[in-house]
């Protein structure tokens, strides 16, 4: 398959770009932040996105989705990255929608159409430590009657404060560090024994810390088979990783473009600073790196669309590379803007903070490079 977008994709991109630039320019993000919005996104805007079909872009038509394919979802995220648009799209419509494909008919019927309509937001309750590490999961799921009893805690759950339900990875057997023995559950946020508190991070989005105190779930809430939760979750994790990579590509592109514009305006020593070769070469290097990220993101989207079960390696490439280059893009933006780049008034800092969070979520460079190296046999 050629590594270019189809006409259909380009149309979606144009539509997304137009919508986001009008309804959700960076100033919107700024005002959510300045008003300390508890969710960090606008419910009203999310509803509008759902009406356009975005919320169900990966969901089958029988549940009210568009079933448009993953590349489209990645394109939307890329455009969201450009304007720093915050929404539960990644959590609910990309990660949860992918994971729930393996759910029981009942779970699907309960949740998928609500995700597609934007009525429900679902977040991924996975991390327990400070680095992404699914196998380290120690939260317990004990058999209890026909269902399970969950005990433990989860942290840094993105969109957790907005969630109506959680995808929860818990240990039904074995011990922390083992990939086997993990099970995946779909848990309603209103269930008794579950409490949440907000965690404020630098990117001003909503994150939750969850405590599960004897939370009872039914057997039907189990996704896939018991003990195989990580296998069930892996495609969803990879969808999230590629999604974050696409979002970071959008962030980095935007940072780079505005910096390049500034280089063509600002004068020092009687010259446009963009004529200084020291800055030119760094810009040209960053341009080249961004081209590599773009290739990886396109390929990852295409491969995931074709074969979600076998997209771990390409997802790792996209996530690692876009995080690494994202950090470079943000750092170079601030440096080349000079003093003004350090001010809150300019957007560079906002991009820097979002990229910092996005590159850490679902595995940073080292996590993915390590995974990649193992696959490659060294």
């Amino acid at each position: 398959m050629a590594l270019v977008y189809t006409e259909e994709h380009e149309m979606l991109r144009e539509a997304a770009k137009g919508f986001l630039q009008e309804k959700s320019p960076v100033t919107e993000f700024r005002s959510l932040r300045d008003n300390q919005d508890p969710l960090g996104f606008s419910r009203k805007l999310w509803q509008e996105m759902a009406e356009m079909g975005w919320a169900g872009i990966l969901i089958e038509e029988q549940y009210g989705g568009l079933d448009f394919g993953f590349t489209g979802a990645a394109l939307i995220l890329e455009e969201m990255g450009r304007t720093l648009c915050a929404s539960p799209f990644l959590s609910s419509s990309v990660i949860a929608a992918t994971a729930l494909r393996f759910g029981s008919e009942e779970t699907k019927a309960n949740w998928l159409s609500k995700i597609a309509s934007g009525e429900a937001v679902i977040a991924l309750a996975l991390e327990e430590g400070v680095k992404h590490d699914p196998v380290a999961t120690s939260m317990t799921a004990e058999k209890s009657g026909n269902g399970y009893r969950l005990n433990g805690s989860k942290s840094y759950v993105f969109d957790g404060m907005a969630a109506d339900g959680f995808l929860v990875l818990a240990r039904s057997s074995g011990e922390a560090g083992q990939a086997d023995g993990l099970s995946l559950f779909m848990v309603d946020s209103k269930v008794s024994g579950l409490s949440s508190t907000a965690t404020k991070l630098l990117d001003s989005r909503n994150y939750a810390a969850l405590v599960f105190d004897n939370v009872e779930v039914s057997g039907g809430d189990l996704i896939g088979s018991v003990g195989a939760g990580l296998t069930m979750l892996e495609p969803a994790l990879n969808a999230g990783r590629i999604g974050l990579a696409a979002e970071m590509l959008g962030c980095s592109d935007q940072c780079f473009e505005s910096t390049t514009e500034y280089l063509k305006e600002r004068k020092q020593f009687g010259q446009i600073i963009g004529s200084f070769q020291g800055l030119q070469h760094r810009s040209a290097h960053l341009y080249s790196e961004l081209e590599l990220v773009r290739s990886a993101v396109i390929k990852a989207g295409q491969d995931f669309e074709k074969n979600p079960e076998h997209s771990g390696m390409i997802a790792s490439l996209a996530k690692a590379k876009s995080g690494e280059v994202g950090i470079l893009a943000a750092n170079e933006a601030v440096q080349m803007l000079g003093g003004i780049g350090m001010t809150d008034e300019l957007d560079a800092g906002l991009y820097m903070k979002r990229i910092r969070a996005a590159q850490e979520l679902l595995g940073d460079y080292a996590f993915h490079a390590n995974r990649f190296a193992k696959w490659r046999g060294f």
Partner: protein
Amino acid sequence: MSDLQAFQEKTRSWLEENCPKSMRKPMRNEFDACWGGRDCEFSSEDQKLWLQRMGAKGWTAPEWPKEYGGGGLDKEQAKILKTELAKIKARPALLSFGVWMLGPALLKFGSEEQKKQFLPPIVRGEIRWCQGYSEPGAGSDLASLQTKCEDKGDHYLINGQKVWTSYADKSDWIFCLVRTNREAKKHLGISFILFDMASDGVSTKPITLISGKSPFCETFFDDVKVPKEQLVGTLDRGWDIAKYLLTHEREMIGGSSDGSMGGRSIGEVAVLALGANENGELADSALRSKIATAELDGWAFLLTMERSKDEAKAGHGIGAKSSMLKYYGTELNKRRFELLMASKGLSALEWEGEASNDGQLPRQWLRTKGNSIEGGTSEVQLNIISKRILGLPDPKAN
């Protein structure tokens, strides 16, 4: 079955029948590479056979039109051929500046007679070409070249000197940049001309490189007579051709390595040389993470090469983007060879002897240092990206 599937089947069975077994192993040294030419010394009968068969089919230049000896394949078919060749680990039948550089330029700028005369022997590997661009005073600032070409009525007369001419002493013909107008601005007085290296007045002197090899030469022209029909394109407007050819050269240099050695990835080479821990991971974890970075970059770069080809319309160059590919690919290749050297430790330093295949690795490592110089240095590529792609203003002289 779709047309492409049918093509794939046919290609596969043709290769199965026609690619000699000994040509399906990674190249061990430079003698395994076949550059063709009048005085080509084939290292084996199989090597000769492989070139003859591929040449006859036009598959040494798969996308060139059939009427000029090429394979006449479209982009999709060419991709299939490439994949099928890779599957059986086939060695390239021919390495050729004619195929990589001159051909595309002739297809775009050459006259019908020139295409008919020069392209088919390139495809068959009968004529080997070298590139006469650089001069002692004209490297990065190529357009300041001074080799003189005068109109003598029924022929041109060429005097001057080129330098760093790769394989000048082994080549049959040269494509050469010469100054035909001293009054015009420097870019507007250059012509692109072809001539036989066996012409009277041409001489070459090999230069030894840091790798101990001497693949390139100083090349001298002393009253060399060249028939007028061997000038390509318009008089004084050779710079456009030169630049177009460079975009092909740059793309080729950028993508010339896939970062493997003898069919093994750097990671595999390192594990073999240094051992793994109980998890099967390279024991030296600092080296391991550097290799992982290089391999991730290598993969993203390969995808970028592929994407550039997909974006470029068939038959056209990719313009200034070739500078990005050249810059990134060559810097990456240098990084990879640093890692290969580190992976093999002290044994990587062996310069002679059978064990090291006469120092194949360190010599290759040294050779890669030239990748970011030949075809325009990394700094020059970054200048081009800044100006042509990012639209940044020219640096002012201070």
